[in-house]
């Protein structure tokens, strides 16, 4: 083999790069456990649909509520909900850190909902507290 002193480190570097994710995750158990509400069984849409498309629903809600003033959402079962992240979604899932962030952080998603929205319906001040602002970034 010619130029082994350059090529062998190169190959080792390449192989090491490929194994970075394996080494990085070694010994960690992968688990995602968003805290689900105890007193409610059904969300506004079926669970699988919420898991896949909640961002789309929230986007539609925002646009319809803000632009058209249409604030009532009727699902397939005919149940009515107010189109509101803080008052509807977060009345059942009150803790962003224990529900939203569990999945979002896992896959590195940082939605900008909480740039404007309150972190919980009980919050008094309209602006997210400074201490929480970092987690609400994107």
């Amino acid at each position: 083999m010619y130029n082994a002193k350059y090529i062998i480190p190169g190959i080792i570097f390449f192989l090491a790069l490929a194994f970075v994710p394996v080494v990085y995750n070694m010994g960690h158990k992968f688990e995602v456990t968003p805290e689900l509400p105890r007193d409610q069984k059904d969300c506004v849409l079926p669970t699988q649909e919420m898991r896949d498309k909640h961002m789309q629903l929230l986007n539609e809600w925002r646009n319809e509520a803000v632009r058209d003033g249409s604030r009532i959402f009727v699902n397939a079962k005919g149940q009515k909900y107010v189109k509101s992240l803080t008052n509807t979604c977060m009345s059942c899932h009150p803790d962003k850190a224990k529900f939203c962030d569990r999945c979002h952080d896992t896959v590195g998603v940082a939605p900008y909902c909480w740039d404007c929205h309150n972190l919980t319906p009980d919050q008094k001040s309209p602006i997210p507290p400074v201490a929480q602002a970092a987690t609400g970034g994107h």
Partner: protein
Amino acid sequence: MAAFYSFLAVLALIVIPWLGVGMGMGALFGIVLPYIAIIIFLVGFTMRIVDWAKSPIPFCIPTTGGQQKSLPWIKFSPWDNPYDKKGVFMRMVLEVLCFRSLFRNTSVKLQQEGPKVGYSSEKSLWLFALIFHYCFLLILVRHLRFFMAPVPYPVHIAEFMDSILQIGLPVMYQSDVLILVGLGFLLARRVFDGKVRYITLMQDYFPLLLLLGIVITGVWMRYVVKVDVIAVKELAMGIVTLHPHMPKAAIDPSVYAHLTLVCALFIYFPFSKLMHMGGVFLSPTRVVPNMSRRAMWVNPWNDPSIKPHSYAAYEDDFREKMIEAGLPVEKKA
């Protein structure tokens, strides 16, 4: 025809897992195939490099893209015609990161009036190749969010920068658009430019269409069907933690189509022109300093029992015969 067969092959790589998963073969396409693909990729890649490293370079053949170093008052190009290791290093850095030699690409055109050939600068290949490669790198880095837990900070940065325009929801990645532009150009060039089409074979169309297939299924998953990302990460984490298992929640078949296309890319990689990824570091025309006039280049496969034979020695052997035949000699008898 080559383009058509390549298209059919890519289509098959989408349809087969799509149907297969429907028939309950999720573990085959989600677990078995990725492991096979990554092993073939790593072993194949290494063997290909070792094979190249074993091949001797018979001649000093760097491409000379500028004035070589000669007399002290002549300005020379240390990066385009390097004379030492430092110059070669800079040449390689610029080659790998900026595609410097592609920047010199020219186009040939026959003039309208008379058989006159005209050459002009052609930067579009360089530009779109650069766009494609950097987008591909960025997308690869972004995908680490599925293979690493917790997601490392640099991946967050890549994600943030790539979706900084905040268009739509889920937010659009600029690299998704740009890679389609880049790949679209690289394919259109092969399809619509007659001169390029003439030299384009199946092994040129197939990787382009395969990459397009990967990008399009990826875009489809994110922006159209919106797959269950947590379940996808569960599958990916199972693979990289070496405890593979199928996630509890169902995954959309498009994920398996995407994954199968990526596996096909990994399997195909070591046997194809895609090996330019490793090959660029082993190209004599790039990595050899231009020193053919300053140092003797010994061909490694020369037979060591054959000694050099100078002209003086040659003349010594044949002097009488040369004088007899009237040939000029340097040393009379």
